């Protein structure tokens, strides 16, 4: 597994796309802080404002970045025909999937962490350094869960890219599901539907205060929903990888 992680890290590091995505996560956070934060927070912030600005405001962008990183893990292999050299280096396909999931999750999470830390530093700097805010454990919980959820979304994207044999469709599926299908389901079925929807359950987890008041704080079910979907996708991807011929289409 060490070789697989080293291989994946070199694969990602040697592609401009990886750095563009990491730059997008951090750059978007900083620009949003400057554009929104400067106007709204001329005075001191409270911990909740900070959590919303540092984590929740950009969460979709960070998930998108993580999805891009995850989707590239298999998507590029299928797009450029490198799936065969990759499988020649790592012929045990289940292990290959596991390694790619692990590597993409770590880099996706690192992108979210870098964006959160940069955003936190800039906002505190812009609004007068209030050291008391950063001692609030709920702020750090939000940041930590924002990072973890980005890793989980990257893992989901790896699985979807392995299934669809491409990066684009995997990212589009995630964007459509998280940005269109789930909000429409909540509008149609009420906030209670968020209990079983993967991306809204992640939002609920990272929120400083519950997003859907009728659901209350994140409970065990909220923690379980996304991993359950992820397990189904990764299991299906592992079976498909094992059964399919290594072709690029």
């Amino acid at each position, binding site marked *: 597994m060490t070789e697989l992680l080293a291989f994946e890290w070199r694969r990602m590091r040697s592609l401009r796309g990886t750095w563009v995505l990491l730059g997008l996560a951090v750059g978007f956070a900083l620009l949003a802080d400057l554009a929104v934060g400067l106007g709204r927070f001329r005075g001191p912030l409270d911990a909740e404002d900070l959590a919303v600005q540092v984590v929740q405001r950009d969460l979709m962008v960070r998930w998108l970045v993580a999805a891009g990183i995850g989707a590239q893990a298999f998507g590029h292999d299928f797009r450029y025909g490198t799936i065969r*050299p990759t499988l020649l*280096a790592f012929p045990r396909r289940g292990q290959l999937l596991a390694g790619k999931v692990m590597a993409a999750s770590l880099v996706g999470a690192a992108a979210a962490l870098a964006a959160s830390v940069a955003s936190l530093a800039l906002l505190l700097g812009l609004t007068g350094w209030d050291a008391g805010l950063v001692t609030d454990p709920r702020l750090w919980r939000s940041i930590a869960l924002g990072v973890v959820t980005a890793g989980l979304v990257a893992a989901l994207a790896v699985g979807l890219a392995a299934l669809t044999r491409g990066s684009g469709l995997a990212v589009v599926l995630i964007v459509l599901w998280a940005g269109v299908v789930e909000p429409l389901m909540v509008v149609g079925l009420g906030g209670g539907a968020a209990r079983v929807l993967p991306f809204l359950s992640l939002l609920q987890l990272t929120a400083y205060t519950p997003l859907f008041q009728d659901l209350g704080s994140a409970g065990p079910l909220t923690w379980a929903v996304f991993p359950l979907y992820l397990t189904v996708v990764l299991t299906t991807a592992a079976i498909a990888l094992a059964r399919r011929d290594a072709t690029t289409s």
Partner: protein
Amino acid sequence: MIRVEGLTKRFGGTLAVDDLWFTVEPGKVTGFLGPNGAGKSTTLQLMLGLVRGGGRTLFDGRPYQALACPMRVVGAVLEARAFHPHRSARDHLRMLAAAARVPDRRVDQVLDEVGLSPVAHRRVGGFSLGMAQRLGLAAALLAEPRALVLDEPANGLDPHGLAWLRTLLRAHADNGRAVLVSSHLLAEMQLLADHLLVLGRGRLLADEPTDQLLGRSRRGSVLVRSPDADRLAELLVGQGATVQRSGDGELTAFGVGTQVVGELAHRHRLRLHELASRSASLEAAFLELVGGEVDYLQGVRGRQ
């Protein structure tokens, strides 16, 4: 050593590879020949577990998927352009070096070995087919494997490149490694291969040393120059040979060897000025062998 045992592959109703059994010995270059669509590439992919099918292939006694570090056992190139176009040649090899637990200095060595050091930092998307082939070979050689499996490695190489490839593969075989090479360049294979496997419609048509395959060909001939050519021609026809007159006192005899011609001339006190064996070309032997085992033959199939 590579042992192939009962490899079989179907694509829908088409039997692409039909129960293949053969061995690729170390210390030899084994050529893998066959017409288009014969199943050569599919066989190589089956051997390496890239496509699913029946049978098994053992590399030093173990299936490819069971090898602890497969790149150290088998170096394979199945496609010339299996690279991310925006990655540099050096980065591509460094990535594979991490997979094979090979130090980065080996990347520079192997780039030098295939003549790509001057373009090591260039993006591979701009590489010619010949350069891409060299990069593929560099990747195959990276972990100094005990066997090489190469699908059409000579495509796109210029004459210098072909000579370089021949020397490289010969050196690997001479070092005791097993080398399996598929190619359409029959003249090149005649120069390179010690042993030939010929495939037609997924079936193994020949598995024998190159010399033996060429020797079996009916296209082998004997060139004779003699002032008694007319009399010699009569005698050769009497021995069952087919004789062509091709100039003043010159004969080409098919179906007999130099020994028969020499002894016949001696027995009848006929003078010989030249007696030479002309072996069949691999192309001629190949065409004889595959005969009807061709799927895509111009003007024969596909006519309405």
